């Protein structure tokens, strides 16, 4: 196992260095970097898979000469689960990247991209396996920095640089809070080692625990993209190349979920029940608002990014319910909640990366992120359309795909909470169920919009008209994920026991009978409260569909089918301008949720004759959903910070002599302080 882990990381690092060395030969660099990433991912799958199947963990500590810093690696079941998800997504993304990156070879440095890409995947795996907080912070930073360089890869576009900068600021804001979290943990446990922290967790006073909870929630919440800390997501994801978006949205933000589980349910599990309520409500708000913002988007990748906010919300609802149950001592139900969260984590990684890859194929052909310029691609890119449709069906939580299976489990966890003890807890669970119910419907609406506007009807631009099917390798990457969407759903009866095993491997959860049980066909929760039999649904759908089609064919085989244009009420032939647009599709919902979204509308009418309003020459309608977080939250904070910074800058005058004096004074001060 030692060798396997090191060779996984080694493969990525070698790939990174090789691709940097081959920088001048873009084509070869691209191949080398992606093939090493593929190899590394396969090794990662083998490693984590064998750990999961064998139900053992891999642990190693390398001492370093720095005080307090050990390279402590601990791949327990939970880490292995996340590494499996990371490796699967990176495998398909890299297969996709092999041909996707070719269009950049002439314009940008693909070699340096390969360097950061490989390091990024390696850091994802290292973050998931880190077991020492200082070492964790280092690899966490590597992950943030490499992903920053991946975001600004297309550096000739200024908006990408801006997006990257925002991402950098936000991620370091998060890191600051994480740093504080670990420092507080160090203060009260005396160690940076996770294992020691876990043993000493009982010594932490309750108040400090609460502070740690809040700090970690903000810190990791920034990475996960909970509302209102989500603002970097819809900027950074569209800027990055699509398979990097797939990795960032599919797995990078999940590392934050891993760390939340790690801290709240593994390192110091005896929290107050209001922690869970807070997480649950944040999840409910994030999911509902995330999907509403997604609806208002017409940039396909921003839309997908907002859906990540939504799905993180759903995962947090599972996690929050687990935390509440845990604090109430209802461990079997806590396991159910955590299983739902982990299951959805995995499923979201699969279908969201599938959708990002699909979006990447579309963007590659149409050279636009704007969905209003797509249309009719189902005829031109039939395979991509099928894959994207599967992703859309899965993310809309429609049976029998995987998104439904995990949302169903989340529902069950929430239902169980409704019967819980106090009214406050009941109320928050009801809120969460309501949010999840509306989120489900809204997500379906949003993906009808995304799929229909992109792939159906007539093309709305020249580029869309001339687009062709993407190369085979890109389709292979998507096909694997699409198949997984179906398989992970239908075989939920075989997938869930593995996740239950991961959950019960946490020391806080072991020795309890989970409130969720499985048989090869079905998943049952709370001693028969509900059971889900997705294979039956799938077989019934397929079987009855075949019967219906056969019968209808026999009945109507003599009837002719002829092609006549769309009924246009006798007007001259309809063109693509008459189709519904992405904005138009979602407008009604946005207006109906107006109190949350505050949509604005500006109409500009230009008249031919300026004083006569009867002959308008043009009419422009601007529909917008304002970004309240920037104007109401971040702008004021920014103003205050700039003010403080301007005061502080008095001591920062750029004079080297003065800086030397500062150092001198500080040293003297320290010496004096240590003497007293």
């Amino acid at each position, binding site marked *: 196992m030692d060798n396997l882990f090191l060779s996984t990381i080694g493969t990525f690092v070698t790939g990174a260095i090789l691709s940097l060395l081959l920088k001048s030969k873009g084509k070869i660099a691209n191949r080398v970097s992606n093939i090493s990433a593929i190899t590394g991912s396969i090794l990662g799958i083998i490693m984590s898979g064998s750990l999961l199947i064998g139900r053992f963990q891999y642990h190693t500590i390398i001492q370093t000469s720095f005080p307090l810093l050990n390279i402590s690696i601990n791949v327990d079941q939970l880490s292995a689960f996340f590494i499996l998800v990371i490796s699967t997504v990176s495998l398909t993304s890299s297969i996709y990247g092999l041909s996707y990156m070719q269009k950049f070879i002439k314009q940008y440095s693909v070699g340096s991209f390969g360097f950061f890409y490989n390091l990024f995947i390696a850091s994802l795996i290292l973050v998931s396996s880190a077991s020492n907080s200082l070492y964790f912070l280092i690899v966490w930073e590597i992950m943030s920095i490499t992903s920053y360089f991946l975001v600004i890869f297309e550096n000739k576009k200024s908006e990408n640089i801006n997006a990257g900068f925002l991402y950098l600021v936000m991620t370091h804001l998060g890191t600051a809070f994480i740093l504080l979290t670990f420092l507080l943990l160090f203060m009260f446990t005396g160690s940076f080692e996770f294992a020691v922290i876990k043993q000493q967790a009982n010594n932490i006073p309750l108040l400090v625990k609460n502070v740690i909870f809040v700090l970690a929630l903000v810190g990791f919440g920034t990475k996960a993209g909970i509302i209102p800390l989500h603002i970097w997501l819809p900027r950074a994801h569209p800027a990055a190349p699509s398979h990097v978006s797939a990795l960032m949205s599919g797995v990078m933000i999940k590392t934050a979920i891993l760390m939340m589980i790690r801290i709240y349910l593994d390192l110091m599990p005896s929290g107050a029940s209001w922690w869970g309520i807070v997480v649950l409500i944040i999840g409910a708000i994030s999911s509902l608002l995330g999907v509403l913002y997604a609806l208002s988007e017409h940039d396909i990748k921003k839309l997908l990014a907002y859906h990540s906010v939504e799905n993180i919300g759903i995962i947090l609802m599972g996690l929050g319910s687990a935390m509440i149950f845990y604090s109430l001592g209802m461990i079997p139900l806590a396991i159910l909640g955590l299983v739902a969260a982990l299951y959805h984590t995995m499923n979201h990684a699969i279908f969201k990366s599938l959708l990002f890859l699909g979006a990447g194929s579309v963007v590659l052909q149409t050279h636009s992120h704007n969905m209003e310029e797509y249309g*009719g691609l*189902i005829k031109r890119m039939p395979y991509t359309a099928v894959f994207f449709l599967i992703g859309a*069906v899965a993310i*809309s*939580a*429609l*049976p029998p795909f995987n998104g*439904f299976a995990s949302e*169903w489990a989340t529902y069950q966890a929430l239902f169980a909470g*409704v019967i819980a003890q106090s*009214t406050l807890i*009941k109320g928050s669970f*009801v809120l969460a*169920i309501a949010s999840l*119910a*509306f989120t*489900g*419907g809204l997500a*379906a*609406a949003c993906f*009808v*919009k995304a*799929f*229909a*506007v992109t792939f*159906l*009807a007539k093309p709305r631009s020249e580029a869309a008209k001339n687009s062709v099917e993407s190369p085979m390798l890109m389709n292979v990457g998507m096909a694997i994920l699409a198949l997984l969407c179906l398989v992970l759903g239908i075989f939920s009866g075989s997938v869930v026991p593995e996740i239950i095993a991961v959950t019960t491997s946490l020391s806080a959860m072991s020795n309890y009978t989970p409130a969720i049980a499985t048989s090869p066909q079905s998943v049952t929760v709370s001693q*028969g*409260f*509900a*059971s*889900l039999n997705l*294979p*039956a*649904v799938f077989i*019934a*759908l397929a079987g*009855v*569909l075949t019967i*219906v*089609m056969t019968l209808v064919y026999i*009945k*109507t085989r003599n*009837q*002719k*089918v002829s*092609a*006549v244009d*769309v*009924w246009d009420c006798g007007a001259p032939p*309809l063109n693509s301008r*008459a*189709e*519904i647009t992405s904005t*138009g*599709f979602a*407008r*009604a*919902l946005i207006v*109906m949720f107006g109190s949350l979204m505050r949509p604005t509308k500006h109409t500009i009418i230009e008249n031919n004759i300026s004083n006569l309003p009867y002959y308008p020459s043009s009419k422009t309608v601007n529909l917008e959903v304002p970004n309240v977080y920037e104007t109401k939250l971040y702008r004021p904070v920014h103003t205050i910070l700039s003010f403080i910074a301007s005061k502080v800058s008095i001591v920062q005058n750029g004079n080297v002599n003065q800086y030397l004096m500062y150092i001198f004074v500080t040293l003297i001060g320290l010496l004096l302080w240590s003497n007293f």
Partner: protein
Amino acid sequence: MEILIFVIKFLYVPLISPLCIGIIRKIKAIMQNREGASIFQPYNDLLKLFNKDEIIAPTASWIFMYTPYLLFTITLIISMGLPFLITGDNIFGVNDFLVMIYLFAFSSFFLSLAGIDTGSSFGGFGSSREMTVLALTEGGMLFSILPLAILTNTTNISLMASSLAGLDFVYYAPVLISFIAFFIALLAENSRIPFDNPATHLELTMIHEAMILEYSGKRLALIEWSAFNKLLIFAILGANLFFPWGINSSANLTTTFLTMAITFAKVLIVITAVAVVESSVAKLRYFKLPDLLFTSFILGVISLFLVVI
């Protein structure tokens, strides 16, 4: 014997559903002082459509082609999970109410895609409205059944119905409130007045009809038929889940036919209510729909709190 009962249950919904639509239309006609079409008219309509040729726009893709079959299939499958003729096990896996709600969402999802597929502008906004109504109904649907699930400690619809049948009458208040919530969701999901006028010819006001304007022949028949089925499924749910008296487990043919007859009698009451509502109220303005749908949702929440507190 079991196979025979299974087949009877499988065919019950598709065979009876046109009759229910015929009865609704008849009642509406009577309320308008008309004589109206025969109650068997929908059968004639379907039969005729199956015998006609088809016209499909060249812009349409496979989504447009296969959606009607999918819709019809989904209604057939869901009908097997309904709480009448309880056959014990659940071979299609649709007894869970979440599966049922999300399968209906599945059919709306594809119907909306099919509406946009041809590039018809009517289809486009029909789809937009359908998904809007669906998204807002989801809460009411879920929360109208959830109280019963908590009350009976199961999400299995058949088990829910059979344990509700033994419920003391004094505990019935939440069930009644739930039923009102469910009834509003029923009207919304089935595109009835006040949400949508199933008899309208004005494209600009349509929801469901706008999406199927481009269909003809057998595919139109399938879509119409699945809409009929959907209404009957909701009616049976309303009649047998909320008022679960007279449901038998189907041991033999006699009880099977008895249950079918009782169910049909109860369904008649529900669809009469639908017809009377349709005749008495006006169609709501589109942007007023959320008010009604949120009412349904809030009623569900109230009922839930009555159950859990």
